[in-house]
């Protein structure tokens, strides 16, 4: 019967270990959410943009290269806003600081909150795009029928890879429920962006 007892103990040990792995993997799935975010932010993969303001680096402007920067704005079904940009595309030198105006219009009578979420393509350009000031750092509030123009000030770093000639910046508007959970770094970065 001791052999049977040893077998029972073995089964128990196996079960405990597999259940531990199970719990670990379930936790790992959730841990991947922040890890993925951090990974994308550090490497600039997936076009994830750092939503904190950068200081202007005073470096020599690379006059030999022109980079075409395109702007695309997209609305959202849940938000009666329109977003437009003064120029669909502009040509800048690496190192040069550029400014472009975006206009937000609230087409409804009611005040509402929204947020423009950026994405950069190609993703390898993400870390070289330094945003000095951007409306995307914080949530916006528009009164009914209000129109608001906010500039985007950015700089392309001089170490932008040679094979990049065009950078596309996409802003998608999303409604924000002020009561709902909002990303942690929103309000914190709002102050130091100006």
């Amino acid at each position: 019967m001791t052999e049977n007892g040893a077998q029972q103990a073995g089964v128990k040990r196996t079960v405990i270990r597999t259940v531990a792995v199970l719990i670990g993997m379930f936790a790992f799935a959730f841990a991947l959410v922040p890890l993925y975010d951090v990974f994308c932010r550090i490497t600039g993969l997936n076009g994830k943009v750092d939503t904190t303001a950068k200081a202007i680096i005073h470096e020599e402007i690379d006059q030999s290269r022109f980079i075409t920067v395109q702007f695309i704005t997209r609305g959202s079904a849940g938000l009666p806003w329109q977003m437009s940009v003064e120029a669909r595309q502009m040509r800048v030198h690496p190192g040069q600081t550029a400014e472009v105006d975006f206009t937000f219009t609230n087409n409804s009578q009611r005040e509402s909150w929204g947020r423009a979420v950026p994405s950069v393509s190609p993703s390898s350009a993400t870390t070289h795009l330094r945003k000095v000031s951007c409306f995307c750092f914080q949530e916006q509030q528009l009164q009914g029928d209000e129109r608001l123009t906010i500039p985007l000030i950015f700089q392309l770093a001089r170490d932008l890879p040679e094979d990049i000639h065009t950078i596309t910046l996409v802003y998608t508007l999303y409604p924000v429920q002020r009561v709902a959970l909002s990303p942690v770094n929103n309000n914190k970065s709002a102050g130091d962006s100006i």
Partner: protein
Amino acid sequence: MAPKLPPQHSLQHSSTAVAGGPSQEHHAHVAHPKGVMRWLLTTNHKEIGSLYLIFSLTMFFVGGIFALVVRAELFQPGLQLVEPEFFNQMTTMHGLIMVFAAVMPAFTGLANWMIPLQIGAPDMALPRLNNFSFWLLPIAFTLLLSTLLMPGGGPNFGWTFYAPLSTTYAPASTTFFILALHIAGISSILGAINIIATILNMRAPGMRMMDMPLFVWTWLITAFLLIAVMPVLAGVITMMLMDINFGTSFFDAAGGGDPVLFQHLFWFFGHPEVYIMILPAFGIVSAIIPTFARKPLFGYASMVYATAAIALLSFLVWAHHMFIVGLPLTAELFFMYSTMLIAVPTGVKVFNWVTTLFRGSISFEPPMLFALAFVVLFTIGGFSGLMLAIAPADFQYHDTYFVVAHFHYVLVPGAIFAIMAGVYYWLPKWTGHYPNERLAQCHFWCSIIGVNLTFFPMHFAGLAGMPRRIPDYALQFADFNLLSSIGAFFFGASQLLFVLVVVLCVRGGQKAPAKAWEGAVDLEWSVPSPAPLHTFETPPVFHRAQSHD
């Protein structure tokens, strides 16, 4: 006369192993519930194995009917039979039912029946848990199927349920879908724990790990894959649940989430999942080919290592499902090469099967026919997989019928043919009768014609650019789809033959001896046919001579 093998009794273990009369009587006076309660409360691995297999076969027909609705709609261009919304529910449900309710429970059923018999254990390590993990399944899939009757319909976002299609834009029944998948996932996890505990602790004295039959080995590795990835699936669907009902934004860009994260998490589960559906098939085929080639399996150890290598690599290739989401070049290259690397251990396996056949004394009984068809047709599916692995080519093939052709080649004549081969192989052990040879041969030839007629034209439709999951198509794809639909109905109808063979075999037929197939060597052939309810109550003595090295 069919090439029936001469009955060769070799009950070398009968003195020690087989629980004969006395032990049967010993159990006779334990009060067994009758009728439904017997099945509801059973803790016997053979009865639970049968329950799994019957459930799986039922769901195979349910999922098959969904597929036939899809094929009927695609019979000719234009929208004729069903609404596009219902078409979407059918493609989704077909995938979900076939993956989670047909293929996976079939393998678990075979594992329940055969693993204790193959390692000389009296039962599974945790018999009550075994009962629980089976009975979760009918609950899960009744719930899942009931969503079709709910207002707004059932899941319509494809079996991969990509967010935000499955969160923001999903029908109201999605929460039920999530619950059903949670229950099914718990069932698989409990099954996997049980299988690991059984294999690691309950082998016959003297049986080392490297003496285990390959079906046991492949299932052990599969169970580890289940333990590793089912919790990730549970995590993903929990995040979906929270996004839908509790206002979080895991996959919602508005709140700082990322829809691409969903795809990463899903395929981190999803790619090992597709190997969960094929590794046990490798084990079944590795049992059948040596038996009917009357030669020991070539390269037993390399088979074990190749299986383990495939399992490990399966964690490193998930993003090959996402080549067009905008991965950076480095990631595209990494996932392309790691995917191609899987062809190496898979090639080892195919080589070993072919080499086992080489100069073998081969006979072509139904299990062998299905196993040989598996080797050929699975390899075709493997080759189209290699084509899809090439990232730049995948930009063209992505989401076309070429992908549909690829994964149906590895799942239908792959996983499902292997299951059928296993059923034909072990039916004599389960029922004590050989399956009707003529009907089984007929089933095989109808299946192989049906499967190729259905899925081979899909390669061409896909290469020509026909997108998947769309109820209508351009006129130039009409001929391919006509052939596919005819093939699908032929294949579906010929599976009724399978049911007929199984029912006839349960009810009677040519009596099978303990060792039903001449070349069979594993331990299960040392117990009488049909296997008594309780076997190996005294552990058998395992003879190294019959091991693989």
